[in-house]
């Protein structure tokens, strides 16, 4: 087991490649977990490597809608009152840029409730059931070992 941990720790490129592929990973395979021990500390790089968690995504979507609607209303109001079409367009463009900066990169703020995946040592104790030819006796045997 120590040997496997060592292999996982040093094989950075493999783990990153896997996490890129399984973005929406929902299985409990140990390969799917966030690599909590291999990311750098700066928030900008964190934003590139980590994805948002589910609550963060919902929050980001809500923020996007609110920012854009507010920008549109503010832009139209200002343009109508000042009788200046160009002003309306400039305010709205500024609002869109602000929204992109706040919502699109995955800031750590959007990753405050990350899902906790199974530790590899735990996953080892409960191997994944075989898919083919499951008979009732073998499935009950596996269930017993799972509840150990």
């Amino acid at each position, binding site marked *: 087991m120590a040997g496997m941990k060592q292999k996982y720790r040093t094989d950075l490129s493999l783990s990153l490649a896997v996490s890129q592929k399984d973005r929406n990973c929902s299985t409990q395979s140990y390969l799917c977990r966030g690599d909590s021990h291999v990311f750098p500390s700066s928030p900008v790089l964190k934003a590139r490597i980590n994805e948002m968690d589910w609550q963060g*995504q919902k929050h980001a979507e809500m923020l996007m809608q609110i920012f854009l609607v507010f920008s549109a209303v503010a832009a*139209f109001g200002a343009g109508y009152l000042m009788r*200046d079409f160009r002003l309306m367009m400039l305010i709205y463009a500024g609002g869109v840029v602000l929204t992109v900066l706040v919502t*699109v*990169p995955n800031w750590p703020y959007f990753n405050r409730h990350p899902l906790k995946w199974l530790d590899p040592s735990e996953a080892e104790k409960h191997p994944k059931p075989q898919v083919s030819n499951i008979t009732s006796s073998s499935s009950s045997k596996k269930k017993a070992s799972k509840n150990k």
Partner: protein
Amino acid sequence: MHSFGYRANAVLTFGVTMLALMCFLASLSDTFTVPTTSAEVKILNINWFQKQANGNDEVSLTLNVSADLSTLFTWNTKQVFVFVAAEYETPQNALNQVSLWDGIIPSKEHAKFWIHTTNKYRFVDQGSNLKGKDFNLTLHWHIMPKTGKMFADKIVMTGYRLPEEYR
């Protein structure tokens, strides 16, 4: 919203939708203006009035067009296209409209104008019906918006008459 590309796409799409809504509202705000315009066209001189080789009548006029179209300009107006048309009736056609002059007014400052000119476009009839003809001169304008619907309107001025004989 689970990846960078997905979120960027969502922001841009929703942003464009909001932009379309803003432009629609800007166009709608145009309908609430009630413009008051005035115009006058004087025919200063009939330069010549001849029958062409192909049998059609042709007139050359010197016009003085003066108008005040400044109330047509809103915050959503790009330019106003103006033209003067001669309108008359012949046995062949119930309505003939011949454009004599046009111009583009780019801004409110240029909207109160006065121009002294010969007709920019030739006043040619379909046939030979212009001798002693009564006609109207109509000033048409098209308000071209920055976004949205284009409105068009006109002022009709009556009481003009061409001479009985060729000159």
